[in-house]
């Protein structure tokens, strides 16, 4: 009897797959289902909160989307991104070149580590934002000042991650290279840098994230240009939907950029991790 009932229980879902069951199966197979669902949850909550409204300065989701397309349509958004991305890209590239160099040097040499590591540990842990206003004293309010703000936030992150990457290279691989009489040069270029490169790249990704914070700080604090200007301007004229659209768009752009970099990292740089 007990056996019978168990068998019928097992057979039941196969005979009549309910709609709920179908959704559950679909959800298990597709990650995108959850992405869509969680986006929908937040946007619905936003729309409802905007309609109540919880604050006079809280536009609905639909108003924000409309404002976004309006700004894309009249070109202000595109011009703003053109201005914002310049110092960001410039700053990140400079930070990457210097940061990876300094980080690798600190990883390879104990003297460089002793001299430089504490400085960058302090700079990474400390609220660098406090120093951003200083930049304007020397470099005014132009591209240089904004680029410098990006570098101030991105460089310590990249340096420390590159340093950690080199220090955590598989010691067995280095021993292997030594056992085949590899020179120090061969050790660095054939073992240490390739083995560290996934972590180096991860550091670069964190540097880009810090760079986004830096460029937004610079545009809100130093000089109202680009997306920062859109935010400040629409706030001052109480165009809240436009302001929210600008804020949401920069967060979305940064998220997509970082997700893209992460995809590149796991799929191209670490093929051994992908199969898991």
């Amino acid at each position: 009897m007990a056996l019978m009932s168990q068998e019928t229980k097992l057979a039941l879902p196969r005979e009549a797959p309910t709609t709920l069951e179908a959704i559950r199966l679909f959800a298990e197979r597709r990650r995108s289902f959850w992405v869509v669902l969680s986006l929908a949850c937040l946007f619905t909550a936003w729309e409802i909160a905007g309609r109540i409204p919880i604050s006079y300065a809280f536009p609905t989701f639909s108003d924000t989307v409309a404002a976004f397309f309006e700004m894309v349509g009249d070109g202000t958004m595109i011009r703003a991104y053109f201005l914002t991305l310049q110092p960001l890209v410039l700053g990140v590239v400079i930070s990457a070149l210097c940061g990876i160099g300094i980080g690798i040097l600190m990883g390879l040499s104990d003297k460089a580590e002793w001299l430089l590591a504490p400085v960058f540990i302090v700079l990474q842990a400390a609220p660098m934002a406090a120093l951003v206003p200083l930049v304007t004293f020397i470099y005014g309010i132009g591209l240089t000042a904004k680029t410098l703000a990006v570098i101030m936030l991105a460089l310590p992150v990249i340096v420390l991650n590159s340093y950690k990457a080199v220090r955590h290279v598989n010691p067995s691989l280095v021993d292997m290279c030594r056992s085949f009489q590899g020179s120090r040069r061969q050790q660095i270029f054939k073992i240490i840098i390739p083995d560290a490169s996934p972590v180096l790249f991860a550091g670069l990704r964190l540097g880009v994230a810090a760079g986004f914070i830096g460029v937004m700080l610079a545009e809100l604090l130093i000089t109202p240009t680009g997306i920062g200007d859109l935010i400040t301007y629409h706030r001052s004229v109480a165009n809240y939907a436009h302001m929210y659209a600008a804020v949401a768009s920069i967060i979305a752009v940064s998220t997509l950029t970082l997700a893209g970099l992460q995809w590149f990292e796991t799929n191209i740089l670490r093929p051994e991790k992908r199969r898991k």
Partner: protein
Amino acid sequence: MTIQASTAAAQFDPESVTTDDSVVRVEGICKRYGAVEALRGIDLQFERGKLTTLLGPSGCGKTTLLKIIAGLIPATSGQIVINDRVVTGPGPERAFVFQDFALMPWATVLRNVGFGLELKGVAEGERNRIARNYIEQVGLQGFEDKFPHELSGGMRQRVGIARAFAVNADVLLLDEPFSAVDEQNRRKFQEDLLRLVEIERKTFIFVTHSIEEAVYVSDRIVLLSPRPGRLARIIEPRIDRSASPDEIRRDAAYLDVVEDIWQSLRHYAE
């Protein structure tokens, strides 16, 4: 079981192991890590064409001794003489096989096997030809363009062994090479290793913590005692290798040596 070691096991006698054909001589090696004494007064000779195993409980310094012979770790005192020359660092006459394989995850099997030659500046065509030959010898033909993460543990260590053979060194140093390989593959490996010892006239120094593995593959077993690592006994199993592997594993002499070593080591077990 209280049967003593059979005649197959010779007692430790430094004179009997000194021969003219010794390729590697370990002379008075001591190693300290700060206040910790890892090795004390190790004197050993290793002959060409023979496989010697360093066996002992954990903490006896067997891997440290192997890495000192390899030149990867400096000794505190004493010296390593290879082919009548005192060596202080790694050299072309020695090749090392690592416990964790030490394969470059970003390189194919072919490039991993040829890596020792690549470092020596051997031209690509030549080194690929040599690498392919040894890949075939260890039974990995068809896997040349695969990456390490696409191979099983056993296949990865085959790559490690092919890489060590590819540089054509006189002395092969194997640091617990099969400990990360599953049991079935380990037995196959041990058989393959015996075949390689027979066809390649090289000096093999092998580190393991498995008594059965040591007795099965070794011409000579060096027992080390722990804290600090010292020579305890040297045993020559003298097992008839013409028999099939399965017969050897059931052979009374083989089992007696295993038991004898266990009796020597059992009081070190926790």
